């Protein structure tokens, strides 16, 4: 049991890192949303497995929220939004795919190199999970930096939060308060983001964040 529990937990969180990388080179919004749905469903499975192994009933709720809410509800809503805005082909990257993926590999290596020595005495099940979770967080950050489209920034941020929940689930016995609050914050964040996307669209006829830069107050400065 011990070895199998260990291996499956690794497989699931490792897969999340891989899917995070896949997210990075999507060039169409619809495809990106599908990959994100897979990311969230993997999170659901990973958290569910932690619930089983740790015997922590409350983690099933977190797994359910990840699977249903982030894996199904939010991608569906974002698909609808993308259709309504007619932007399914628009992805503006700041950095090319090659350099992005090399950066992604470097960040993953960094996550492992940073976490493994620091967690020498921690629960081994939590240890690798934390390393992978940090990698997912860093890849989410990278995605937010390399994309200028508002919808892809939302997806980058949510994949970052998936990494946080993976880390929280790996930390044995972490109280429920936190998981639920994270789920709620995602909900709130989503509403806020959604509102803003529509507002930006109303104002500028685009969701390219680059357009906003024209309006930066700083440019009036220096007089």
């Amino acid at each position: 049991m011990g070895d199998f529990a260990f291996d499956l937990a690794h497989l699931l969180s490792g897969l999340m890192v891989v899917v995070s990388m896949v997210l990075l080179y999507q060039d169409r919004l619809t495809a990106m949303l599908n990959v994100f749905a897979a990311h969230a469903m993997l999170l659901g499975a990973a958290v569910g497995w932690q619930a089983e192994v740790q015997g922590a009933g409350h983690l099933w709720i977190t797994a359910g929220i990840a699977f249903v809410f982030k894996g199904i509800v939010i991608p569906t809503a974002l698909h609808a939004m993308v259709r309504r805005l007619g932007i399914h082909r628009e992805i503006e990257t700041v950095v090319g795919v090659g350099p992005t993926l090399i950066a992604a590999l470097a960040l993953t290596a960094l996550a492992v190199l940073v976490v493994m020595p620091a967690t020498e005495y921690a629960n081994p099940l939590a240890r690798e999970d934390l390393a992978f979770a940090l990698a997912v967080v860093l890849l989410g950050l990278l995605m937010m930096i390399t994309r200028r489209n508002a919808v892809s920034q939302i997806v980058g941020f949510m994949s970052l939060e998936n990494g946080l929940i993976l880390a929280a689930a790996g930390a044995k016995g972490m109280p429920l308060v936190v998981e639920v609050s994270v789920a709620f914050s995602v909900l709130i964040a989503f509403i806020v983001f959604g509102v803003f996307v529509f507002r930006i669209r109303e104002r500028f006829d685009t969701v390219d964040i680059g357009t906003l830069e024209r309006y930066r107050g700083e440019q009036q400065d220096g007089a």
Partner: protein
Amino acid sequence: MTPLLITPLIAVLAVPSLAVAVLVMSADYRISAALNVGFSVVSLAAAVWLLIEGPFVTELFLVDDFNIYLVLLNAFIGCTTAIFSAAYIGHELETGRLTPRILGLYHAMYQAMMGAMALALLSNNIGLMWVGIEVATVSTVMMVGIYRTPQALEAAWKYFILGSVGIALAFLGTIFVYVAAEQQLGGGLASMAWTGLKASAATLDAGLLSLAFVFLLIGYGTKAGLVPLHAWLPDAHAEGPTPVSAVLSGLLLNVALYALLRFKIILAGNPATIPVGPVLVVMGLVSLIFAAVMLYRRSDIKRFFAYSSIEHMGIVAFAFGMGGPLANFAGLMHMTMHSLTKSAIFFAVGHIAQVTHSQRFADIRGLSVSHPGLAVAFAFGVLAIAGLPPFGVFVSEFLVVSSSFARQPLLAVPLAIGLLIGFGALIWRLQDVLFGTPNPAYAPRQASLLPVYVHMILVLVAGLWLPDPVRRWFETVAAQLG
């Protein structure tokens, strides 16, 4: 734990929650502005009650010398800002910059932010504190974007992205602290309680704690506006409504710094962890000097004072990084004095922007001729924040500099240079605003300056004579901070 002790705590947290529920439904802006003031006054009364009941600890909440004074300061400034906000919003409606429809949301978000900050300050649980700061961030995002202009949307978007990423990294740091504690304290709520973490700090895994602090520093440091994590701050201050600028500068920055200091106490309890002090000293000095230099290039009055807030958070971070009873005392006092003075300045700036119809220094001239009362109030605020005696900011800055001379004389040099650069910019801009020929188009508005004067009198009194209980209070907390 007797129920009597808990009651004021429940009141402090429940009043804003109730207020949110009521204000979301309120349709008339006059009623909602009045309700906002009313709820803020009740919150202030609850905070005073909590102060009287004194320190106690429960599983989820903690009231001690450190947080109670911040809770009281928050409730007080929250109250005066609500009073200022009522007048300010009325004028914004007249000029059509805001619509009555949106004000229910505005007032509800104001109370949500106040409640979330109280939760963050009072929780004895690092997860719950994180929730408080997250909710405060989201509610201020909504308020920053309320004008719906392209600039406001840009500012809100930037604030949201940077704030969320920061807060996400802070959560990761929180998880690492938990993992470190779980090995010793056995998981569950006990491993997330400040009291437990502090008591067993020496036995926790130093490597994990150090790693956690890196994330906590980036996360909460972003919220505290420390350079180089400050990018959201000037935009959010400049484009949001002025009452929001006042509470952002006066309160939210403090709460983020408070969170960092709590973690600093834990790390200080474990000699094998990375030294936190030098990191804070460096970030503080960089913030101070960078912001002081940037002051000269600002042409927008709200952006100018936003950079001044970065400068002062730098001074506070420097003081706490230096450590020791005197520097900590100075840091605590500076935090308080800055909050009171900066929110008063933003009140005055709000009135100035309304009478001159502009936030640009180029359009603001000769207020001492056209609006003498407003000019005097503004001048008091700016002279105080510039660090001139006899105001309280002078005393705290003097203490920071002298404690630095006593401990690390070499560091006092850049500190003093930064303070002087900032001083020059403030006096230069003050002259611009006060003197010259006023534009005849300025609105002849009679502003209520009561909140400004209340704050300035407190700062003045603190500069001349710090009451004994307050002094002892600062000393106790300063000793606790190590």
